[in-house]
């Protein structure tokens, strides 16, 4: 009995309302991101809206469904800091892609 009590304390549960709220928000945000395509927004508006809804959804899932909001910072940091490496990789490859398309346009259409 002692063992069970200890376990129950160790794994506190959260209120049902929290999950239902996040669930509802995820539906609404998904619907919004679908509307971005439905109304055929273009250019900067389209891309920024897609990114905003994406990060909001990802944040809500990680924070509440995956319980990161309630974890200690030691774990959270180990998970989130490596993402800066991904961001760095994105920046590098974006620059590389720009250069590739530049050389392709130069040699395919203009001629070196």
């Amino acid at each position: 009995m002692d063992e069970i009590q200890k376990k129950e304390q160790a794994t506190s549960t959260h209120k049902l309302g929290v999950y239902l709220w996040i669930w509802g928000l995820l539906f609404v945000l998904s619907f919004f991101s679908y509307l971005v395509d439905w109304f055929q927004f273009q250019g900067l508006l389209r891309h920024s809206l897609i990114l905003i809804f994406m990060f909001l959804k990802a944040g809500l899932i990680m924070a509440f469904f995956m319980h990161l909001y309630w974890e200690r910072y030691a774990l959270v940091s180990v998970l989130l800091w490596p993402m800066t490496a991904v961001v760095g990789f994105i920046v590098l490859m974006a620059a590389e892609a720009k250069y590739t398309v530049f050389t392709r346009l130069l040699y395919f259409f203009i001629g070196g």
Partner: protein
Amino acid sequence: MSDNKLDNLPGGFEGMSHDMGSDQTAFKGAQWGKVMMWIFLLSDTFIFSCFLISYMKGRTSTVVDWPNTSEVFSLHVGGVPVPLLLIAIMTFVLITSSGTMALAVKYGYERNRKMCGWLILATAIGGLTFVGMQVFEWSKLIHEGVRPWENPFGAKQFGSFFFMITGFHGTHVSIGVIFLFIYARKVFRGDFDNAKRGFFTTMKSDYVAIEILGLYWHFVDLVWVFIFAFFYLW
């Protein structure tokens, strides 16, 4: 598990330096299996990041127009094409299953065996529905002539990125569905209430396993959020 002691430890960033420098378990309050799953998910994040980054690179550097995903993935309802309809439904199915999984974790910790089992089963069925719709989507595109090396809509790279990214994600969903069915059976059988010892391990079962399974399942949903944004909407 020493949650009582956790309350006496400093929180926030001070707590982080305390935990890391404590010459003990660094991840206090997190069961080791949960930490292991997080580390696995972190490495999986890098794999999916590499796929999406190579997709970005391929799409940016091609001089041929990229296929209009809004049209490529449209479905005809009563003769009228509805853009991205199937993808939107797939997104909603996956979020629904993510919600049921989150509730399954909660009811598991509250030792509500029946509720936990049914919710895991609902999650599994949601995942199965998702995979089914993905099969439909793949066969539709293959019929229309999309191949990893060519497609009738535009830039040739489109096909290879599509099959690679959605295929790898679909594999994750399929594996998740298998595990969800296995764990639904375990929950209904009462493995976690009776602390039954596992098949591959001599350790006692605990409801924390449901949270670990949940982490994997939410991760699959999380990846889909990024695929949906970058591959289908961008």
